[in-house]
């Protein structure tokens, strides 16, 4: 049981590619921290540096009170679950789980007891004498977990442990891993590219992009108050609708194409909107903040947006309405959302298409149909504004929170 402290850690590979730059994170004892980001963002490299499988170019990593920079993996007392499980194919399930203990020269009775305990937790009791080849994907995943928990290590490291499972099993194992982690109460760093895993499993989520930490917060904070465009677009499914908009001279209205939205009180203050008067910003609207105006009622004070409905997806509990408005949308190709580093951000290059798509999440009672005009009620107090050059969030005063600290 220990904390993990990562301070200004960088990893530079030969050829000067910087996989991780100046990463700082603190994982409290028993905390479940998720490292999430697109492939190639350095999250796995960061994890491997904690494990000792990758050398640290700069900075320090502490597990408990020990600086572990120069320690070999075996001296760090961490357990790791690999993406492809990496079970020892020549050993039985029991031998796989007990391997670390047998290396520690613990006596056989004790090993058998602890392996039995771990197998009990994981529901592997009847498979202890099988070889990995005879197990299903989900069972192998459990063996890999068993190998980690049986050691009672200082920290768990998990590298996309669910990505090899089918969708149904993944949902099941997601909650199971979270449950086991809570039960054993060991500091855990969990790497994934799946933002749903990130949102549902962790106490806090660290979003990385191109080797840099973007934001580290509780899942809900990340969702409600993304610090920049990248996080806003990465977290949430369907993704946040992002459009280019213009602020009027008074700093009270936003113009999206031909339509306008009133800015909420909180954003109208000089310190927030001041610098953007008569300039463009990027506005972000979560799909669920676009309601069917016909259901919202006349009295609501929300803004209105009209759109051309392309498609309605009925998912049972809700409907996803795909529409177009005549504002310019930022799409996934936009450089502020892409994973490449060191791109020059130029406002002039925002999305080429003049009329672009959006998604609204409405209740099944909504009568919106494809091929018609629909009016959406916009929850303006939940609008997100971003600086078009830096991509940083434009926040009401006091809404920001320093990143990298426990929530």
């Amino acid at each position, binding site marked *: 049981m220990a904390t993990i402290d990562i301070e200004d850690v960088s990893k530079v590979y030969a050829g000067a590619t910087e996989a991780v730059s100046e990463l700082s994170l603190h994982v409290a004892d028993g905390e479940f921290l998720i490292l999430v980001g697109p492939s190639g963002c350095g999250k796995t490299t960061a994890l491997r540096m904690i494990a000792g499988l990758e050398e640290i170019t700069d900075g320090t990593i502490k597990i408990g009170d020990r600086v572990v920079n120069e320690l070999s*993996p075996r001296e760090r007392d961490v357990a790791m679950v690999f993406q492809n499980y990496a079970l020892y*194919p020549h050993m039985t399930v029991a031998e796989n789980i007990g391997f670390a203990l047998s290396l520690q020269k613990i006596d056989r009775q004790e090993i058998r007891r602890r392996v039995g305990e771990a197998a009990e937790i994981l529901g592997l009791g009847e498979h202890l004498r099988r070889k*990995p080849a005879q*197990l299903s*994907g989900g069972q192998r995943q459990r063996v890999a977990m068993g190998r980690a928990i049986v050691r009672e290590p200082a920290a768990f490291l998990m590298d996309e442990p669910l990505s*090899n499972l089918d969708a149904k099993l993944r949902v099941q194992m997601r909650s199971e891993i979270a449950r086991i982690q809570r039960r054993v109460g060991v500091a855990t760093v969990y790497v994934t590219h799946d933002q749903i895993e990130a949102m549902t499993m962790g106490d806090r989520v660290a979003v990385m992009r191109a080797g840099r930490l973007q934001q580290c917060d509780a899942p809900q904070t990340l969702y409600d108050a993304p610090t920049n465009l990248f996080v806003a677009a990465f977290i949430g499914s369907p993704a946040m609708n992002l459009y280019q908009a213009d602020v009027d001279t008074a700093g009270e209205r936003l113009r999206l194409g031909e339509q306008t939205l009133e800015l909420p009180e909180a954003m109208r203050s000089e310190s927030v909107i001041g610098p953007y008067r008569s300039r463009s910003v990027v506005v972000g609207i979560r799909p669920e903040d676009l309601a069917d105006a016909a259901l919202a009622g006349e009295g609501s004070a929300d803004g209105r947006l009209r759109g051309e409905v392309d498609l309605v997806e009925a998912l049972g509990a809700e409907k996803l309405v795909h529409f177009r408005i005549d504002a310019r949308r930022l799409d996934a190709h936009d450089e502020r959302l892409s994973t490449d580093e060191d791109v020059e951000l130029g406002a002039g290059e925002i999305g080429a298409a003049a009329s672009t798509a959006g998604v609204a999440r409405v209740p099944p009672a909504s009568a919106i149909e494809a091929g018609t005009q629909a009016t959406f009620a916009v929850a303006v107090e939940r609008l997100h504004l971003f600086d078009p050059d830096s991509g940083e969030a434009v926040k009401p005063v006091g809404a920001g929170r320093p990143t990298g600290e426990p929530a």
Partner: protein
Amino acid sequence: MSSRAVRAPGAAASRTVRPHPGAPLSWRRVRKRAWSVGFYLLVLIVIFVALFPFYWILRTSLSTNADIARGTEATGLAPSHLSTNAYSQDFSQQHFLTPLINSAIVALVATAITVVVATMAGYALARLSIRGAGAILGFILLAGFFPVLAMVGPLFLLLRDLGLLDSIYPLILAYLVYTLPIATWLLRNFFAQIPRELEEAALVDGATRLQALRKVVVPVALPGVFTAAILSFILAWNDFTFAVSFLETPGNFTAPLAIVNLGQSQFQVFYNRIDAAVVIITIPIALLVLFAQRRIVAGLTAGSFR
């Protein structure tokens, strides 16, 4: 042969709609059957060509001198009566046991050293980032296929100057000259195919590099280790060139070298004794390959990864 021939009509019937039952064989089916008959005929021919010489050796070894003297016209493919005289004479009169033991010592020790050293060298070349690993590998491969005869001269001078001629133990070192490169090359390629995560898992589980190699990598690469061991054993066991060059006293001979002198007397060549000895030295190799084949196949059923 039968499974194909039997299945073919059924398969054809399920695909094509027959006009009525009992229609004559279509051209397609006739051709298909002819193909499979031809295929197995070819297999039989190949097996015959491969095994006939060995059959002939076995036949000769079990014949009496008198039968051999009468020639094949009189006896045909099988000897008129079987005799194990040649075998017993090999051991009682010719002391063939000594060279057999010499061969076993040389081949086994050379194999053991080869496997241990090649495992470590192959692992290092597969895993550690060594400057010029490619060049080292190229050199190793070159050394492995260097003509044996070209090495005899230098090695002879070396052993002579060191006073190590006419003994089986220096012979072991000589065999390492070509078993080691081939085994190292082979094992390096086996190790390179083993997922890195497997060792990393062992390292995180608390193993040292050497423990990870011994307890995880080698067991997983067992088919490769067996292949390297068998190859080394066969190379050392079968060698004639080094043995004939470096050994002098019959008591120090290895089996292949002893065979040459086995059947010679002043007046007669005892083909049956020579062939009996050939059968004897073939048996360990045949057993080894049969046994190892099973191990190699068993080793391939890995399941740690998806």
